[in-house]
């Protein structure tokens, strides 16, 4: 595993960009582009990342970037791959990056089609668990109980989809989850994914101070809490082999999950949850955590 000190100093995201103060996406983007050494062309639908990327005629990113319509990220990426292949320029990695709305909801058809075709690009879903760019509306990734502007009083009544499992069910060569609070985990996964042929899916948890309602300074610690409480689990599935990674792996190897309330109480979006919902959620987290541990046959290695 790469350490922070081994991470290249090169930056491909420029300061003075349009992201919110404390936005986790900036951290994530920096490491993704570092891992790809800037040798990529990005494609991005309408989302927070579009805003971060900057308004014409100035770009905050020093790699080629092609914007896409909201549902069209995976198709655009497929097209870039096909076009570059036709021109024998396959040395360039095609990186598609969409938010949870552009992945779970409006983008899922195109993504599923591209996965079925095993189109040769890296898809990163940066998941901030709601439509943050349009003002925190609920998405297919929003956790149950969360207050958003479209679930304003009761909170979201549906559980989110498990996008990792959905992508894994497509039998693509690489699926991973990671979190911006563990940038070396992210870096290693992108680096590994870079050299795999086919559709590679990385799910990146990105805490959002405005949508999750916490102090911007806490972005990294909230992300850490997400992993330490088991709300987010870091894993990768490489050619069908599932293994927990990084902090999650260490927790599975003799560690202990923190109570979920530590993660939830740090954010106002969960303020609605009553005791029974919290118990239910805690139970769910443990059940899932145990499933992950059982699933990981490499833990004893």
């Amino acid at each position, binding site marked *: 595993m790469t350490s922070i000190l081994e991470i290249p100093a090169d930056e491909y995201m420029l300061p003075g960009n349009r992201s919110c103060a404390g936005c986790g996406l900036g951290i994530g983007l920096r490491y993704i582009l570092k891992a790809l050494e800037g*040798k990529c062309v990005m494609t991005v639908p309408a989302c927070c990342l579009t805003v971060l990327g900057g308004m014409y*005629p100035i770009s905050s990113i020093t790699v080629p970037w092609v914007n896409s319509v909201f549902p*069209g990220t995976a*198709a655009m990426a*497929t097209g870039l791959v096909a076009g570059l292949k036709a021109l024998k320029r396959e040395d360039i990695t095609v990186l598609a990056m969409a938010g949870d709305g552009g992945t779970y909801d409006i983008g899922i058809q195109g993504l599923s089609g591209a996965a079925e075709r095993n189109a040769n690009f890296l898809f990163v879903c940066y998941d901030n668990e709601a439509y943050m760019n349009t003002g925190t509306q609920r998405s297919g990734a929003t956790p149950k109980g969360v207050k958003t502007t479209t679930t304003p009083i009761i909170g979201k009544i549906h559980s989110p989809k498990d996008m990792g499992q959905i992508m894994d069910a497509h039998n693509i060569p690489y699926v991973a989850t990671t979190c911006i609070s563990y940038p070396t985990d992210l870096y290693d996964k992108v680096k590994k994914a870079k050299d795999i042929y086919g559709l590679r899916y990385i799910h990146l948890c990105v805490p959002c101070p405005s949508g999750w309602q916490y102090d911007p300074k806490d972005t990294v610690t909230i992300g850490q809490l997400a992993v330490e409480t088991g709300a987010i689990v870091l894993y990768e599935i490489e050619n069908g082999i599932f293994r927990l990674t990084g902090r999650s792996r260490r927790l599975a190897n003799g560690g202990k999950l923190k109570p979920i309330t530590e993660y939830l109480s740090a954010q106002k979006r969960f303020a609605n949850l009553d005791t029974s919902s919290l118990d239910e959620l805690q139970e769910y987290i443990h059940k899932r955590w145990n499933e992950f541990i059982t699933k990981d046959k490499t833990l004893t290695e």
Partner: protein
Amino acid sequence: MTVLNQQRVNNTHNHLSNPKTYPPGQHVVTGNQSAAIGAFLSGVQVVAAYPITPQSPVVEELAKFIEEGELPAEFVPVESEHSAMGVCIGASIAGARVFTATCANGLAYMCEQLHWASGSRLPIVMACVNRAMAAPWSVLNDQQDSMSQRDAGWIQLFCKDNQEIIDTVIQAYRIAEKVYLPVMVCYDGYILSHTVMPIEVPDGNKVKKFLPPYIPHTPIDISKPVNINPVTLADPRLNADGVLCHGYMEHKYLHHQSLRNSLKIIEEIDIEYKDIFGRSLGGLFSEYKTDDADVVIICAGSLSKMCTLVIDMLREQNVPIGLVSLRAYRPFPNQKLSVALKNKKLILTIDKSLSYGYQGPICIDIKSSLFESGISSTVISFVAGLGGRDIKPYEIAEKAYDYWNKFNKKELTNEIIYESQWINCKY
């Protein structure tokens, strides 16, 4: 030429010059085959499409060329039309020559992508095999699909017969790559798409000469990265070097101007095509017996070929009638048409589509063109052939004869002038 562009040139046109099954010369083929051969000869590098009747055989034919190894192109069997156009956009940005085909609801499904393609100024060529828009379901021909997308910023060219389809596809790449705009090659579903007729397949070696390699306007270059189509403000904005760059409106102005300029380009390229291949498609529109005509029929697509027969019939009945076949619908050749229609007393437009609540789109555009030029001809809007309703030459001839007589007897009522006349509607 940069190294990157040189590389691109080398990588374009590495296909066989001619498809083995369709060597240069005469072949009896469907409209869909004609379009596919046209795409082959144009050396397309990426084909992405989703099946829809009556379009599917176009891409089936191309898939055959590709799987047989005759055409070294990438075939992307996408999961929707939305993605078909998405793939075309991506591949075109990457610098590849791309082709797709669709119709009707498929075209409507890619609507936002159509705007994205034209706004990105990508020379994508797409066959639109004209078919009626649901609901209710109909797989049969009319032109409501492409007409509904006339404002998507694409060039729209209509084909009269299968010969025009292959020639228009080849010309379309030349036009598209010259003005950096996507071109929709429209031809009537079934009437042309599924009907075989003789065509002359041009020699691929000549096509290669006619169609130089595609050079993208904004290459993907890691050493000179750009962010394509980011959020663009309403007003112009300075770049980091202090140069004032366009606002959204300036981009739209440029887009529109390029479409208007393409009026000239379409004509020039057609003339050049004629010099090389011996066939002209009439440039923006073609005329038949209009010189001495007092009354003119205007329509687009296969119907306009059938109408030459109608004109002959009516001429034998001493009706001074001629025909204008629209080829370019967008850009609309308003000025040239006004010249052609000067001194015409009665103009009969036949639309296979409707701008619901008003009249046929061709009629509306003709009327506004005439107004611009101060021509006060009487224009009557006919609607025909919706959802595959068969149109017989005699039906049109009877209508034209009838309305010409009414015009002469000053019997054209407001009902006729202000409302569309439906041909062969049994309601």
